[in-house]
């Protein structure tokens, strides 16, 4: 079990190192959305949240 913990931690730390440069690049050069675009995008994610909540409730 301890090996599982160590292995998972190593994998997650590696993921952080791999994701960080992309985060930095995206925050610097990524497209900025308008308020309307954000509302549309977040509404869709809200819909997913409601769907997952309904699925969990049905169990």
């Amino acid at each position: 079990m301890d090996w599982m913990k160590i292995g998972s931690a190593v994998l997650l730390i590696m993921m952080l190192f791999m994701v960080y440069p992309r985060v930095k690049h995206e925050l610097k050069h990524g497209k900025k959305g308008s308020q309307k675009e954000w509302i549309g995008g977040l509404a869709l994610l809200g819909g997913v949240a409601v769907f997952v909540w309904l699925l969990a409730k049905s169990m």
Partner: protein
Amino acid sequence: MRQNAPVIERTRTSGQSIEINKVLKNTYLLLSATFLFSAAMATVSTYLYMPPMTYLICIGLSFAIIWFVLPRTANSGSGVLVVFAITGLMGFGIGPLLNQYLAMSNGSQIVGTALGGTGVIFFALSGYALMTKKDFSFMGGFLLVGLMIAIVASLANIFLHISGLSLAISSVVIMIMSGFILYDTSQMIHKPESANYILMTVSLFLNIFNIFISLLHILGFSSDD
């Protein structure tokens, strides 16, 4: 000169449209094939009752391939084989996890619901992005920051063992991966020239895989058993 302008514009638009259709067709075809292969590998792993360590080893190996092998092969025919290796390993890796859930009294219902729920989320979001052709590239930074926060929280929870935090991480991961489905699909529509179908397949596969694992966790937690 003036009369030529619309013709050039129309030709460019038509060429771009062919490019979009090609990327979309190749991505969805490869995605379907890799899902069937991954499901077959998961079935084999479930029947073999692989030990829990299999999950970590397979996920670790598949990420190593994604980071070090895939970028070098993405533009060649061997990239397709690499995609099958990644998805096959991931499918084989979830065998012990599926056995854990299937051992519960309503295990098959949990696994079936998670599978169906993942399918509904993917088809609804991908379908929405394809139909409306909206550009979701503005979400990139937000989703990547969210992913980093989720990774740090998961890292902390390996040692903290807080079940509430683990549930919150799973919920956040579903939201982030759903956002990535929108982001990746819109990338294929708006930047077909830079969207490589092999990389897009792996990206969409990872989104769906993470949604399935997180949904499995949430449904298993909310089940009475």
